[in-house]
């Protein structure tokens, strides 16, 4: 799996299971964590088997982001638009979570394909909620609208206490990521990966992809940002998104790709390290085999007594020898 998928597989599976067995009463209480500190909680009670309570907890936003009411701006509208009557937002959310939704499985559309796509969309609740502000910006880009505040820098959360920056303009949107890694090996591998991004963009097949650049110092667009938000040991990556990247069906995919860019790079850095370990272990085994070939088995007996030195026995061995 090279690309990260926008729906949570476990959540989708749980929902599909519930939909298929909506009459059977069963007690469910699952909690799990996904990458970048996103927690889910699903609860079904035997009294109402068609009602599913889904709670979502988001990563802690850094101070420079805007989180009115504990959710990214525009999240509530996005939920209402995407899910319609099937979902009801509970206020206040469950303790310890940013959002709680009440799903009524009986209100799902009867058409199979439509039902399936809606369930996948519900399983992508993370993308809808966290990606809401980015989606608004990119939708405006797609419709080539004039922006009210012009060129204002927006900080959006993608990892716990870390933000990435979006600068909306009329003809394009610039997205800048300060790339931070906690481990020094991760940092070096990530830097080489990120430089490949710039190289890959130059290959002929990818001319229509967003233009991509990497720099070790904060780019000019970030000059108004306070320095604490700009520490990045693996440099800064900037993408320039044009209206053709957010046309029609591409909008959702673009939002998800940009939202999880750091997670994507981090995931592949870890895969790479795992692969290197496997390789090294294999190489060590082959080297030890080569060493074993240097030990002749049959010729041990032939060695002349003169060249044999006597290894000093340990005290215990010497004592047992003398006793026996």
């Amino acid at each position, binding site marked *: 799996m090279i690309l990260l998928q926008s729906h949570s597989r476990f959540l989708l599976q749980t929902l599909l299971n519930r939909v298929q067995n909506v009459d059977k009463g069963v007690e469910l209480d699952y909690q799990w964590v996904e990458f970048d500190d996103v927690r889910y909680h699903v609860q079904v009670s035997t009294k109402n088997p068609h009602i599913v309570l889904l709670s979502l907890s988001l990563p802690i936003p850094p101070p420079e982001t805007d989180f009115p009411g504990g959710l990214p701006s525009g999240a509530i509208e996005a939920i209402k638009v995407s899910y319609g009557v099937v979902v009801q937002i509970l206020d206040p959310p469950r303790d310890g979570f940013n959002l709680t939704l009440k799903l009524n499985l009986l209100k799902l559309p009867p058409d199979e394909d439509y039902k399936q796509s809606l369930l996948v969309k519900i399983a992508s609740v993370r993308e809808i909620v966290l990606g809401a502000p980015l989606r608004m910006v990119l939708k405006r880009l797609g419709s080539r609208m004039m922006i009210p505040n012009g060129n204002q820098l927006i900080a959006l959360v993608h990892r716990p206490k870390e933000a990435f920056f979006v600068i909306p303009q009329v003809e394009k949107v610039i997205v800048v990521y300060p790339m931070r890694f906690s481990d020094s090996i991760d940092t*070096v591998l990530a830097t080489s*990966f990120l430089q490949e991004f710039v190289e890959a963009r130059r290959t002929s097949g990818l001319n229509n992809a967003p233009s991509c650049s990497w720099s070790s110092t904060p780019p000019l667009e970030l000059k108004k940002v306070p320095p604490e938000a700009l520490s990045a040991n693996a440099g800064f990556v900037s993408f320039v998104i044009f209206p053709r990247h957010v046309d029609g069906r591409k909008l959702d995919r673009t939002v998800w790709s940009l939202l999880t860019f750091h997670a994507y790079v981090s995931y592949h850095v870890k895969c790479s390290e795992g692969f290197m370990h496997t390789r090294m272990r294999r190489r060590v085994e082959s080297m030890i085999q080569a060493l074993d070939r240097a030990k002749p088995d049959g010729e041990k007996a032939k060695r002349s007594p003169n060249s044999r030195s006597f290894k000093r026995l340990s005290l215990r061995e010497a004592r047992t020898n003398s006793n026996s």
Partner: protein
Amino acid sequence: MCLQNFPCQEVERHNKPEVELKTSSELILNPILICRNEAEKCLIETSINSLRISLKVRQADELENILTKKFLRFLSMRAEAFQVLRRKPVPGYDISFLITNYHCEDMQKSKLIDFIVQFMEDIDKEISELKMSVNTRGRLVAAEFLKQFI
């Protein structure tokens, strides 16, 4: 390589690799330093009962640096399995071998030398293959990501 058994002169009933201790100058021969270029060198120190070979591997950039460190640390931690490998490299070098007269008795000399040479070639090969795998993966990952936007 002609090593023979030599019990320790100073302490009774001890048998130590003299090249490590360097206590008596009559037991040690002059060390030989072979340099391929500024970044790569090989130091061979001999004594009457032991031989120490230290290598410094070429590290062109930051990535090669961490790959080399990671790989050689991986090997050194398994030094017991290799028998002739030293757990810590001599200061100033990346990896060291310690061959004693006992090793020469257990294993054929020529095969042992072949092993050391093969080892050195393997290290070079492995580091360059690891670097290539990282670059290839990076390119693939980048291409897949950017393809999503087209």
